[in-house]
């Protein structure tokens, strides 16, 4: 119950901010943070709960973004439909990738996700209807009432989606599904012998994870009024989605959220004070440090500190 009260408060805060705050940059920046929270949460369903590392977040995110862009260009469908379509497409990609490679060892799945990203990017570079390498311009529709500003609407929408993802992750984590995933992460052989259908569960996690990433990507072309392959399939999404849970903690649904906040804030500071490249170096270095020294992430550290008191 406490959780849902928290969710309601968070969403209420988002709406209130949209109503009373008028500082556009705030909404642009927050949209990005919310996006990474959702991507990290989605990533963690397969990466943290099941233990299969996905390097290819851009493939799922990008496919969702392009699905939305192409469908909007062709049929001017409403945003809700675009998001649903994007979720479906990326979910299918997750299903396909999962069936293809999750029966193999984790490293093969990881490499396959890189393959998917490059292949996706190449496909969209060569598809002229979707804009090819130069990209596609989009004309935003008017914001849906009661919103007056399109960016404020996207902000609230992304807040809702991020919160929904967190709720879904929490549900999976606490259910028998989550226990099965944890069992297969701890010892896949022992899990099989305990009746856990490991392949089915892995594919399920991959499909859900992919679908959420696709949904996250769908509003992107509207946000920018523009879409092009290089920035859509950018490595930053892969790094952010992976590093946030590793830093925040992979065992609990809050971990990716905390990690995304920390990472996003750090990145803002570093980009503004030093440089953009240094930014990626910091993330990479942090990833290495946390993975080696604090495998349970920040949440794990907090737990250890507070359980001693």
């Amino acid at each position, binding site marked *: 119950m406490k959780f849902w009260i928290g969710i309601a408060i968070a969403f209420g805060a988002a709406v209130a901010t949209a109503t009373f705050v008028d500082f556009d940059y705030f909404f642009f920046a927050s949209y990005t943070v919310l996006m990474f929270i959702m991507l990290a949460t989605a990533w963690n369903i397969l990466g943290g709960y099941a233990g299969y590392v996905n390097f290819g977040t851009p493939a799922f995110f990008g496919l969702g973004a392009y699905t939305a862009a192409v469908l909007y260009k062709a049929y001017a469908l409403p945003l809700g439909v675009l998001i649903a379509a994007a979720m479906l497409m990326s979910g299918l990609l997750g299903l396909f990738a999962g069936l293809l490679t999750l029966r193999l060892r984790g490293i093969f799945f990881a490499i396959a996700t890189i393959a998917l990203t490059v292949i996706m990017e190449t496909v969209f570079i060569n598809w002229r209807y979707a804009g090819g390498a130069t990209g596609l311009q989009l004309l935003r529709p008017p914001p849906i009432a009661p919103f007056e500003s399109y960016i404020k609407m996207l902000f609230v929408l992304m807040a809702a989606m991020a919160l929904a993802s967190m709720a879904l992750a929490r549900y999976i984590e606490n259910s028998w599904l989550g*226990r099965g995933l*944890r069992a297969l992460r701890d010892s896949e*052989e022992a899990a099989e*012998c305990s*009746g856990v*259908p490991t392949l089915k569960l892995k594919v399920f996690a991959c499909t859900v994870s992919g679908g959420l990433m696709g949904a996250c990507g769908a509003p992107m072309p509207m946000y920018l009024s523009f879409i092009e392959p290089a920035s859509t399939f950018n490595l930053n999404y892969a790094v952010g989605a992976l590093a946030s849970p590793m830093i925040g903690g992979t065992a609990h649904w809050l971990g990716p959220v905390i990690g995304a906040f920390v990472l996003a804030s750090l990145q803002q500071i570093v980009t503004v004070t030093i440089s953009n490249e240094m930014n990626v170096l910091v993330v990479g270095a942090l990833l290495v440090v946390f993975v080696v020294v604090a495998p349970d992430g920040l949440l794990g550290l907090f737990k250890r500190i507070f359980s001693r008191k």
Partner: protein
Amino acid sequence: MNALLKIQNLSKTFGGFTALNDVSLDIAEGERFGLIGPNGSGKTTLINCVSGALRNEAGSIVFDGRNVTALPAYRRTRLGIARSFQIPRPFSSMTVLENLTVPLDYVVHIRTLHKADVAGESLAILRDMGLADKAHTPSNRLSQVELRKLELARAMAARPRLLISDEAMAGLSGAEVEEVLKILFRLNESGITIIMIEHIMQAVMRFSQRVVCLDAGRIICEGPPAEIVKNPDVQRAYLGA
């Protein structure tokens, strides 16, 4: 004989190496069966093929009249084949109690997932195994004998008809071996067919009604314990020519 498990002409190769060569075996319902053989003779490979962890290239495995050769491991567990691992593989991120909820959720209560009191059932099994006081201990903090008991408890939580115990007693003290042996006897009395793989000869001989000896992937001897012990082929396999 009412064969619960029928292994027919089973062969398993790894690249160029033949681990199991045309092995055939019948295990009766309710039997206490011992499987012995020197290291590398194929005992664990045989068990892996029966439980589904490995796929055999030739031959068939029939369990309770049903051909399971093509089934994935989790299906075989749901049909009633359970095993413990030679090197214990607890679900290390979970407590002892939580370890048992996995087979309870995925085997026993697979159709009524949210309703059963899996925690209560787990505790009952732990009490049987003498692990109740460790129920909430993280499973990566157990002693060797406790880990072995957890392996057996987790296998039992799947309510199997056939339990395969893979060297559950290796490295344990005399008193600990007795503890585990008593548990296995008690399980068998409640109707569970047990295949025991062990190197501790006195345990195998006391426990088994029938023993089979493997060497280099083949069965070299089969019979009651007293005969096996005296068999020159068996002695040669263990001690070398």
